[in-house]
C-alpha cells in the first residue's frame, strides 16, 4: 500500500526581515505563518500519512512565545502526524525553541525529532529515521547513524535530515553539517527528505530538498514548493510532485543604463513591470542600476523608481549609477557668474572624489543645484 507524505522544510518562522521596512516586511512575515496553514490544508486534502519538516522550522532560538503558540495552533488544524526536525537555525540544544515548545504542551500529533530514534508512521509500515542537529554548525555528518539505524522488518526507511549534501556547492571551505550524497543508498532509504537549501532540488537518487514553501531570498528561483511523495515500496522509485505554495516572487534584475533622453530612461524602468513573473504587488524586486546618466536622466530615473517602488511589494535598489552631466546641462547652468562656477566645481568634485560617499554627496549637491535652478527658472517660488 502506498505511503504518502508531504515533505517540506525551511519554514523559518519568525524570520524578521529587518531589512524590509514598513508594511512590506509585515506582509512577508505574516505570509510565512499563513503558508503553514496552507500546508495543513494540503495534507488534509491529499490525505498524507505524515508531514515531514526537514529542519529550520523556526528562524532562531529566540522567537517569541506568541509565535510558538500560533504555530501550535496552526499545526493543530490538521490532526495527522507532523514530524518536526531541528535544523541549524533551531538546533536541539539543552534549552532551545524545542524545549520551550515542549513546555507549551504540543498536541500528540506533533512529534519533535529531538533524538536519533526511529519514528514509525503509517501504522508501522514505514519508519522515519531523523538526524536532528544539536549544533548550528557541526563538521560531522549527522546522518551517519542512518546506515546502522534499526527498523522493523518490512517497514520502509525514510531519512529526515538537514544539512548540505557534499559536492552540491563548490566551495573550498569546509561545509557545515555535511551529508553524504549516497546516504540514501547506503542506509537503504526509500526516500531521503532534506532541508537547508531553500530551492526545490532532487540532489541524488531518492534524495530531495523540498525548499522553503514561501520564498525568502533572491538566490533560488525554484523556491516556494512542498513535495508530495508517494512511496510504493523499498525499491520502487518515489513519486515526487512539487506543489507550488509560494505567494511572493523574489526577483533580481540589472539595468545597464547610458545617457538617453529622460523619457527613454523612464521607459526602461517602466518596462520592468512587464518582465516580472507575477503581478508587481507579489514581487520583491532587487534592481541593480549601472552605467552613467546625465542630470535630466537622473531625475527621470528617480521619478520612475519611485513609481516602481510604489507598485511592487518591495523594491531594493542597488544604485550604482554615475552622474555624468551633459555639457549642455552644464552650459545651461553657466550664467557667467557664481552658479556656473559652482556647477563646474561640483562636477569636478564628482570626478575626483576620494571616496564613493564623497562622490555621492557631490553628485547629490549637483543634482540639487540643477533641480533648484531649473525650478526657480521655471518661476516656481522658493517655498515650492
Amino acid at each position, binding site marked *: 500500500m502506498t505511503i504518502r507524505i508531504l515533505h517540506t522544510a525551511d519554514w523559518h518562522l519568525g524570520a524578521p526581515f529587518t531589512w524590509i521596512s514598513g508594511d512590506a516586511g509585515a506582509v512577508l512575515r505574516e505570509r510565512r505563518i499563513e503558508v503553514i496553514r496552507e500546508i495543513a490544508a494540503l495534507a488534509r486534502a491529499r490525505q498524507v500519512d505524515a508531514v515531514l519538516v526537514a529542519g529550520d522550522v523556526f528562524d532562531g532560538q529566540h522567537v517569541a512565545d506568541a509565535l510558538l503558540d500560533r504555530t501550535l495552533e496552526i499545526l493543530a488544524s490538521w490532526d495527522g502526524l507532523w514530524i518536526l526536525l531541528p535544523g541549524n537555525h533551531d538546533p536541539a540544544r*539543552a534549552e532551545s525553541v524545542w524545549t*520551550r515548545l515542549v513546555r507549551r504542551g504540543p498536541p500528540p500529533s506533533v512529534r519533535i525529532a529531538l533524538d536519533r530514534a526511529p519514528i514509525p508512521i503509517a501504522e508501522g509500515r514505514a519508519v522515519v529515521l531523523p538526524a536532528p542537529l544539536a549544533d548550528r554548525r557541526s563538521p560531522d555528518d549527522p546522518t551517519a547513524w542512518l546506515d546502522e539505524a534499526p527498523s522493523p522488518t518490512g517497514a520502509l526507511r525514510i531519512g529526515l535530515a538537514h544539512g548540505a549534501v557534499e559536492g552540491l556547492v563548490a566551495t573550498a571551505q569546509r561545509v557545515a553539517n555535511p551529508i553524504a550524497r549516497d546516504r540514501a543508498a547506503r542506509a537503504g532509504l526509500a526516500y531521503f527528505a532534506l532541508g537547508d537549501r531553500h530551492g526545490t532540488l532532487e540532489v541524488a537518487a531518492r534524495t530531495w530538498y523540498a525548499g522553503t514553501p514561501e520564498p525568502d531570498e533572491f538566490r533560488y528561483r525554484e523556491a516556494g514548493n512542498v513535495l508530495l511523495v508517494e512511496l510504493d515500496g523499498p525499491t520502487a522509485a518515489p513519486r515526487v510532485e512539487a506543489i507550488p505554495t509560494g505567494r511572493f516572487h523574489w526577483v533580481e534584475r540589472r539595468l545597464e543604463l547610458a545617457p538617453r533622453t529622460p523619457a527613454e530612461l523612464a521607459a526602461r524602468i517602466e518596462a520592468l513591470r512587464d518582465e516580472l513573473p507575477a503581478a508587481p504587488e507579489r514581487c520583491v524586486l532587487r534592481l541593480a542600476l549601472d552605467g552613467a546618466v546625465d542630470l535630466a536622466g537622473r531625475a527621470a530615473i528617480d521619478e520612475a523608481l519611485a513609481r516602481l517602488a510604489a507598485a511592487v511589494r518591495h523594491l531594493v535598489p542597488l544604485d550604482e549609477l554615475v552622474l555624468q552631466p551633459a555639457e549642455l546641462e552644464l552650459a545651461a547652468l553657466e550664467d557667467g*557668474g557664481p552658479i556656473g562656477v*559652482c556647477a563646474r566645481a*561640483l562636477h569636478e568634485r564628482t570626478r575626483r572624489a576620494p571616496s564613493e560617499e564623497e562622490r555621492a554627496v557631490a553628485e547629490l549637491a549637483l543634482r540639487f543645484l540643477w533641480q533648484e535652478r531649473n525650478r*526657480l527658472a521655471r518661476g516656481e517660488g522658493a517655498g515650492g
Partner: protein
Amino acid sequence: MRLVALEIRDFRKLAGLWRIGPFDRGLTLIGGDNEEGKSTVLLALKSALFEAWSVGGRIREAMTAHGGGTPRVAVTFELGGTRYELAKEFGRDCTLRGPGGPLRGDAAEAELQRLLRFEPRRGRAERRAEHQGLSALFWVDQGTSFLPETTAAAIAAQRDRLGALLRREIGMVAAGPLLAALRARIEQQYAQFWTEKGQEKRSGELAALRSRIAERESLVATLRAARARYDEAVEKLERARAERARAEAPERLEQARERLRIATERLARIERLEADRALARKTVEAEAAELRRLEEELRARAELREKLARDEAALRALEAEARDLDHRVREIEERLAALDAEQTRLAEAAVAARKRLALAQAARELLERQQETGRLRRLADEAEEKAEAIARLEAERSATPPIDEARLRRLKDLAGEVDRLEAGLLAQATRIELFPDPGRSARTAEGSPIDPARPLDLTAPTELVLEGFGRIRVSPGGDLAGRRRALAQARDHLAAALAELGLGDLAAAERALARRRELDVRLAGERKALEGLLRGAGVLDLESLRSRLRVEQRRLETGRQSLGEDAEPAQLAGASDAAARAVEESEGALAKVRAEAEAAGRSAAAERERLAGIEGRRRELLRAVDSARNEQLAAEARLSEADLEAARRAAAERHREALARVAAIDGELARLDGEDVRLRKTLAERELAALEDEVRRCRREVDRLEGEVRGLGVEACDSRLDDLERALGQHRAEAAALEREARAWKLLRECLAEAERAGAERLVEPVTRRLEPYLRRLLPEAEPLIDAERLVPVGLRRSDVVEPLEELSVGTREQLAVLVRLALGELLLEREGEAPCLILDDALVFADEDRFARMKAILAKAAERQQIVVLTCRPRDWLGLPGTRLRLEDCRASAPARG
C-alpha cells in the same frame, strides 16, 4: 562730468556775487584764506546739483548768506560732451539749459537726477551718499578724506554702478534675482541641518532621527545582551549536562566501590593479626617481668651478705676512734679553767686605770674653759664701749637739719632765681640821683631822708619830698609790677624751702650739710669696729656675745664642782698621760687572755661534737647489722637459694617462647603491608565520596542552570528585538540618506559661496590694476589690499606683511583714499568715457614734504585725464602744478547789497 564755471550769490559766507572759473580741464587750484569761503564753494556746488530748488526750512536758512538775500548758484558743466547750464535760485526758481532746451522747476530737477544718477533726498531726511551720486565719492569735504567710513559709504552708494563696470570689464554677468533666490533656497535647506557656524544642528529631522537611533541601539544592545546571556547560559547548561552524564556513568562508581571492598577486607585481616600480636607482646612482657623478679631476688641476697660484712668492720673502727677523742676533750677543759682565772684579775686592773684617766681629762677641760671665758669677757667690754659711742653720734645726727645734696641744689636754684629777678627789676628801675643845693635835702613821702650821695633805683611809683621844692612823684615805666610780683613769689618760695628745713639762709644750709657728712663718716667707723669685735667672738650682735659669756661662766662653775673642792686641776691634768698608758696595757693583756680562752672553748666544743657523731654512727651500724642478719634468716626460711635459681631458669625459657610468637606475627603483618592497605582504603573511600559529591553537584548545577535558562529565556525571546532591529535598520537608512542630503546642501552652499567669493575677488582686480601705478609712485614697495565685497581699501602689504588700514598713519590713509578715487576715476573714464571731477577740499594736510611732493606729481599726472579741483588755504604749497590757479578773493564780482 566736467565743471566749466560756477557763479554763487548770497550763499552762506559768500555774500554778494562770486564768479569762479573757468575751471581748467585738468587741474584748477582755488586758494583762499581760512574762513574765506572755500568750503562754501563746494557746498554751493553740491547744493546746486543735489538739493531741490524748492527746499525750505532749516536747509535753506543754512544756505542764506549772513547779509541776507536769496541764495543762488549757477553751474555750467559738461556731461558726455554736452554742455549744461544750471541756475538754481533756492525757493524761487530753477532752470537747466541743455541740448533739449531749457527746463524749469521740477522738470529741471528730474532731468538733473537722470543725468547725474542720484536719488533725491526726501523731506528732512539726512543727507547720505546716495543722495549725491558720484560726487559723494569724488568731492571730498574738508577733513574727511582720511576717514575710512567716508570712502566706504561713498563706494557703497555706487556699488552697483561700479560693480557693473567692473563686471563688464572682466566679462562677468551680474548676479540676478535667480542667484538670490537660489541662495535663499540653499540657505533654507542648509538651515534645516546646519547651524550658522557649520555645526550639525541639535534639533531638526536628522538630529531627531539620530536620537531615535541611539535610543533604539541602546535598547537593542540591552536585548541582545539578554540573548547573549541566555545563549551563554544554554551553553553552560549543555556543558553541565554532559558533565553530569560523565559523573553518573555507572562503571566509575562500581570500580570505586570494588576497590573499597577489597581494601576493607584486607584491612580486617591485618587488624586481627595486630590483635594477636598485642596479646603475644603482653605475654612476653609478663614472662620478662617474672624473670627479672627472680634474678633480682638472687642479686639482693648476695648484696645483703656483702653489706653485713662491711657494717661489722666499720663498727669496730668507730669504737677505737671514740676512745681517742674522749681523752683529748678532758685536756682542753683543764686549760680553760686556768684562763678564766687570769681574765678576772686583768679586768679589775683595767677598771682602776680608766678611773684615773677620766679625772685627768676633766681637769684639762676646766683649764681650757677658764681661758676662753676670760677672752670673751674682754671682747664684751670693748663692744659695750663702741655701742655707746655709736648711740651718741646717731643722736647728734638726728639733731642736725635734714638736708641732703638734692635739697641743697633746690635751695640754690631758688636763690639763683631770686637773684636773677632782682637784677632784672633793677635793670628796669628808674634811677634818681639828687644833687641838692647846699642846705637842701630830700625825703620820702613817709618822711625818711634820702642820702643824695646814693642814687635811688625806683621800681614803683614813689613820691619824694624835695625841700624847698615840694613833692615830686616818680612813676617808672615798663612792666615793673609784674617783675615785682615774680620776685616776691621767688622769694616766698625760697623762704618756704628754708623754713621747711629749719634753716635761716643758704649758708646755714651748706654748713648743716657739711656737719651731717662728718657725722656719717664717724658713725661708719664705729660700726665697723663693733662688727670686728663681734666677729672675733663668733657672734652676730652684742646681745649674743653677752649671752655666750653667761653660758661659759656657768659651765666653768659646774666643772670646778665636779673635780671637788680640794682638787688641784693643774696637778690632775699633769697625770693624765700615765693613766692613759695604764689603761692601754691592762686592756691589751685582758684581750689576749680572752682570745686564748675562746680558742680553747671552740676546740673543746668541736671535739665533743665529733665524739657525739661517732657515737651516732656506731648506733646506726649496730641496728643495720641486726636487721641484715634477721633478713637473711627470713629469706632462707621462705625459699632456699637453690630453689630460687631453678625457678629463674624456667621463667627464662617461657620468655623465649613468647618472643618467637611475636616475631612470627610481625613477619605476617609485614608481608600484608597494613599501611598501604589503609591508604588504599582511604583513597577508595575518598574517591567514592568524591564521585557521589560530583554527581550531586552536577545535578544541582544542572537544576540551577535549567532554572536560570528558563528565567533568562523570558527576556531573551522578547519579540521586541526584531521590531527594534527592523526600525533601527530603517532609521539608519533614513539617517544615512538625510546625512548625505545634509552634506550635499552644505557642499552646495560652500561651493556657491566660494564661487561668489572668487567672482568678487576678480571684480577687485580692475581696481587694483589701476591703483597700483599710483601707489608705486607714492609707496614703491607697497601693494594695495582691497575688500572684494565693498571695493574699499583695507590696508597695504609691505614686504609680505599686511598692515590693516586702521594701523596706517592718518596721512597715509588720506593719500590712499585719494589714490583709490583716482583709480575709480580711471575706471569710469575708460568704461563710461568720462571721469568725474575730483574735488579735494584742503586735502593732504597730513602729508609730509616728500609724500606731498609725490602726491602733487600723482595729481599732476592724473589731471592729464581727469579734471581735478583743489581748494586750499596754502596755495604756495601747490606751486609748480600745471593748470589754472584762482584766488577766491579775486572771484568776487560784486559786493553784497546792504540791508
